[in-house]
Structure formats: C-alpha cells, structure tokens
C-alpha cells in the first residue's frame, strides 16, 4: 500500500515537473538584487520560493513533498532544493529565476536528510542521507557535471546526519550527526533516545576519510547536533536540540575551532541559564552574517532569534518572533533575513527588526533560508 502511494505521488510529481510546468509559477522581472530561497507549505501543497529583501516573491517551484534546505553553487548560478527527511528527491534549479534543471531521486534504501553542499569547484554535490534499513548516516556524492550521477557514498560515523557545510579550508566537509536512530520501517519515530550518540565530524571531501569526530560531553549526550554555520575565523557554530527531560537547563549553541583543531572539545557559548531555558531546548536554524562575525540562531519553540558577536562571544540581540525558523545573511545590509511558519518575512538591520509586507499569509515558511547573489 505504501509503495503504491509513493509510486503514484512520484509519478504525479514527475508529471508536474516534466510536463509543461517547467516554467516558474510566478515569474517576475528580476530586480538585480539578492534573492532568498525558502521552502514553504500552502494548504496541502509544498514548494520553494525565491523572494527579494523587500519580501517580494520572484518565483515559486512546486515540490512533491515538504522541502527543507538548499545547497548553493559558489557562482550562484545553480542551487539544489532538498526535501525534508525522509526526503525522496532533490531538485536542481537556477536560483535566479527558479528554472528547473534536473531532479535527483533518492537511491534505494537511502533518503535525503534535507541538507547538502557543493564542493568548492562546484563539480560535486554532497548530500546527507540515511540508510533506511540500518539508520546509519552517509554522505551521498553526486557528479554535478555528469547529470548528478551518484558516484559514491561515505559514512558519517553516526545516525541521523543533518546539516553539512564545506569548511573554510575548502577541503573538509563538516557534518552534524544528530545521533538519533530512525528507520524507514518506523518513519520519524526516534528509537534510541536513552542512548543517543550525536557528534560533529570533519570528513575529507576528496576521499571521504574521517579527519576528526567530536562528541558533546557525556552528560549532554541527548543534545542532538543539527545545524551549522561557519565564521570568518574558520570556526563552526553548532545549534542543537535537546531530547532529554523538559526543563533541563541545557546549553544549545557551541563552537568548535574547525578541522585543524582536530579532536579538541566543542565549547558552549556562555549565556545565563534562563536565556537557554527560554529557547525551549530547541534551535531550528543558524546563519552567519556576510562578515562571518555575527551568528544568528532561531528557536521556533522559544519564538526567539538570538544574535551573537562571535569575535567576543557576546549576545548582541534577542528578537521575539512566533514560530521563527528560517534565517539567512542579508549581504546587502549586513544584517539578517528571517521567516516564520505564519507566513511572515522579517529583515534585521543593525539589530532592528522590520516585518515586511506579507504577500500571502497562507504560505507557511519552512525551516531554512538561503541567500543568493543574483
């Protein structure tokens, strides 16, 4: 029954994508400014959209299931939209206008985890994936110049790999292993909460070899490492979600000094306990500003955005936004763009927050936002 339903939805999706609707649904003249990609849900439909810093939607593209995050090629001429875990496909498109270029279907017994990244030269695409029968994490390796053929896979050394980034050295891949066992047979059910084993790993993007694996301290093993952002000093910020008892006052954002720091421990940002508690044990997304100096972390359960200056590790701002999750650097202003599940887009400049005019309040913005230089 399940496989039949999947076949039908896949076929339907192929029909939509391949049969004349290749053009974006809502085309608009390009403003020559930056765009921001964000997945959305609208009634029972899913898609991705590109909007500008005024919140005007330039294009939309349908997705066969709920979307999640994106990979951007360095030249900003190609991007990939990943479906949410367990993701069945990824769409390759021109992020300037939403024109679909290609589609990757998940390999047998593999599903996408929602995140991916290109190699520095744009020739390879790396996607976090889960083996459905065992729960083990892998990086799927795709040849971007050869029809996105899957040319290999490398273990991530953990369950539930989530966000993946290319390190500042252009060589290492950084993967956040969430550490939660989920099997295809029991979709989205977490099977090992009492003995989770999350980790941050650095993997050589040339051959998949493990450079270092870093775990949180033993007493914090129920912190699922999920989202990443890299700063200008080559450090990695890790935003986490806690699976332990409600009310445990746990820290949720840590720094690691990058692949060259090897197995040195991650270090949690310091924050008064009540501020951690206010995040409700849950960070949804993380982004660095254009300088690689300011870190923004969103918490859709705490309805908050925290902004740190990573040079001195001080908290600069706290914004209250209901169900906020998507966040991206606003290269133009030096601040951030944010989106929420109630259909709103926000612009943060010099720590001042503005809600942009809402074009379509039925369009609920999903977890992640990615900036594109047009």
């Amino acid at each position, binding site marked *: 029954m399940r496989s039949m339903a999947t076949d039908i939805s896949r076929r339907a999706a192929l029909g939509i994508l391949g049969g004349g609707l290749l053009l974006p649904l809502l085309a608009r003249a390009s403003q020559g400014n930056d765009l921001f990609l964000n997945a959305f849900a609208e009634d029972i439909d899913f898609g991705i959209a590109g909007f500008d810093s005024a919140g005007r939607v330039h294009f939309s593209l349908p997705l066969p299931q709920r979307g999640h995050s994106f990979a951007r090629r360095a030249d900003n001429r190609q991007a990939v939209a990943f479906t949410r875990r367990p993701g069945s496909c990824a769409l390759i498109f021109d992020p300037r206008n939403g024109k679909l270029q290609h589609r990757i279907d998940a390999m047998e017994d593999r599903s996408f985890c929602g995140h991916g990244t290109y190699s520095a030269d744009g020739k390879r695409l790396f996607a976090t994936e889960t083996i459905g029968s065992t729960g083990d994490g892998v990086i799927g390796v795709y040849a971007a110049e050869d029809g996105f053929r899957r040319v290999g896979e490398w273990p991530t050394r953990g369950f539930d790999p989530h966000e993946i980034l290319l390190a500042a050295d252009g060589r290492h891949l950084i993967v956040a292993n969430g550490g939660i066992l989920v099997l295809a047979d029991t979709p989205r059910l977490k099977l090992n909460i009492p003995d989770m084993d999350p980790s941050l790993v650095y993997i050589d993007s040339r051959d998949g070899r493990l450079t270092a694996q870093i775990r949180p301290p033993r007493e914090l093993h129920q912190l*699922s490492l999920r989202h990443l952002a890299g700063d200008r000093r080559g450090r990695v910020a890790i935003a986490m979600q806690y699976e332990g008892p409600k009310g445990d006052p746990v820290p949720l954002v840590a720094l690691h000094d990058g692949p060259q720091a090897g197995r040195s421990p991650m270090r949690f940002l310091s924050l008064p306990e009540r501020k951690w508690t206010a995040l409700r044990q849950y960070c949804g997304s993380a982004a660095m500003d254009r300088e690689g100096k300011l870190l923004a972390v969103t918490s859709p359960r705490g309805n908050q955005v925290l902004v740190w200056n990573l040079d001195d590790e001080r908290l600069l701002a706290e914004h209250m936004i209901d169900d*906020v999750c998507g966040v991206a650097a606003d290269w133009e202003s030096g601040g951030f763009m944010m989106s929420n599940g109630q259909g709103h887009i926000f612009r943060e400049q010099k720590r001042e927050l503005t809600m942009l005019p809402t074009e379509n309040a039925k369009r609920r913005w999903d977890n992640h936002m990615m900036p594109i230089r047009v």
Partner: protein
Amino acid sequence: MKRLTWLAVFAILACADPAHAVPDSVYAGINERAVQQHILPRYGQLAVATGKLDAAAKTFCAAPAVDKLDAVRKTYNEVEDAWQNIQHVRFGPAANASRADRFAFWPDPRNIIGKQMAALLAKRDAAALVPEKFAHASVALQGLPALERLVFTDQAEKLTAKSVEAVFRCQYLQAIAGNLAAMATQIDHEWRDGASAFATRMTQPNGTPYRDPREANVDLFKSLYFAVELAADHKLARPLGGSAQEARPHLAESWRSLRSLRNLQLNLEAARNLYLTAFAPAMPDKGTAEGIRASFDEAIAAANEITLPLENAVQDGKARPAVEKLARSIVALKKILLHLLPAELDIPVGFNALDGD
C-alpha cells in the same frame, strides 16, 4: 469512503475561524481538567496495577508452578491496560530518567530486546538484577515487552522447570516487576506531591518549564496527537502491510500476549477521553467540536468491529477489510485533529516547532 471523509474535513475546515484570540483562562481550564481528570487518575492507576504485579511476581516465584502462571499474566494485563491508558503522556515525570522508554521499549525493529535478554539469561548474573543496578541497565531489558516474553508463549515453561535457569528467570521477572512498580510510583509522586509537583507546574505555570497556560497546553495537544499518530502510523501500519500476504503480525505491539488490538482500542479511547474531558468543553465552535468527536467515535467503532485478534485479522482475507477500515479512519482522525484543533483553540503548535528537524 475515503473521499466522503475528506469532503467532511473540508466542510468543517471551511467553517472554522482560526483568527480569534483565546484568553489564558481557557487554556488554564483545559490544563486543569486534563491534569485532574485524565493524567493523575491514570498514572495513579498505573502505580496501583504495578504494585499488584510486583506482589504477584513475588508470590509466583516463591513456588513457581504452571497453574499459577495465570495469576501473573492477569496482573501483567492489568499493568498493560493501565499503561496503554496513559502512554501518550510522556512529558514531565515520564520523561525523567528515560522512564517511558524503560517502561515499554517499543517499537524495537532491531530486536534489541531479544538479543539483550538472551545475553542476560545466558550469563545469569544475579548482581545485574539488584534494583539500583537494574534501573540503569539497558532500557530494552527493563520494560513490559521483556516481561511479556518471560510469561507468554512457550518461554513461560522455562519459569517453572526445576533448574538454575528457571530460578534466574524468576529473579529477572521479579526485578522487572519491582522496577516497573518503582517507576510508576515515582511518576505518580512527581506529578502529585510537593511544591514542585508537575501538576502544579502545569496548572499554575511559573516559568519552568512553562511560561503560561497556553504553552503548557501545547504539550497536552501533542500528547493527544501522539496517541493517534502512534496508533495509526506504527501500531497498526507496521503489522498491516500492503496485503494479507505482506502482513507482518509479529510486528504488532503485543503479539505474544495477543492483545495488540486491545492496546489500540485503549489508546483510542484514552485519546477520546482526553479530548472530551479537557479540550471539547473549551471549543468555541460546537460544530467543529462535534466533528472531531464523530471522527473519534468512527475510529473506535471501527476498532470494535474487528472480530479476530489483530495478529490474525491482518492475515485473514475475511477479517482484513475491517482492519483496513480502521487504518483509514485513524489516519483521517489524525489529519482532522492536526488541521482543526490547533486552529480552533489557537494552540501554538508551530509549523516549524511541532516535529523536530
């Protein structure tokens, strides 16, 4: 059938008005009713039932005999009933020290329970069964599914053989029963007693872990939804498979004690009780409230129409359509709950916040 159900959903959706502000007193009322009339009595009952199981295990093991096994099985069933009545409320005391996972580790698609039990029974290390130690053993060894394996199917005979293994099995049985009783007592105590009782923190939020009644209400909605989601997507979908030939009866929750259908019935009734007791009286639109109730009634009626044990019904050409009907009605109920209830009561179950990613 499916189409009709969906037409009904859209008809209700069209009438719902999500844009009203709901005063805090409404959430406080839901929370109060849920805690006092649903959660406390049910966790109280779990403590009572596990106490009886603990006593029954001791009595049985004092003089193990085949004809006395039924007394243990009876108390096991009472504990399983009590657990199925409240297993959806997993936040707060049940989450502390991984108690819910230790109480009933399920599902177990990798058969960790089987593997670890085999190792434990082969090693026969009595020191591992000392309460303080056993409470920190693998969660797979501690719970109701492990106990079920000891007292049902042909495994049960090994409890009464005059052998070293039988003695150890009985010690293990008592360790599980004692540990379940201790956990249920701790959960009940943490909900009820003292200045930091979770009942107080939920009904009179002071910041930890809830800042206001509306935030506390989210956990109750999630529990309600979880009961239905677990039933639809796992307890029923796993054994059901795509056809009678593809059915997998051994993936049913309690196939050894042949009570998987009863578990589902109790789960649905528990969810309906939580809904009717706590949420329904607060619903501004009576039509929506009735629509949700009707959907619960339909699912429960469908469950009651299944005449064979679930394990057999999924493989039986004649009985299977009733199981498929139940599957459809629980999936419909799940969608109706998620689409209608948070909108109607303005419960902040965020699009981004509901399900971690």
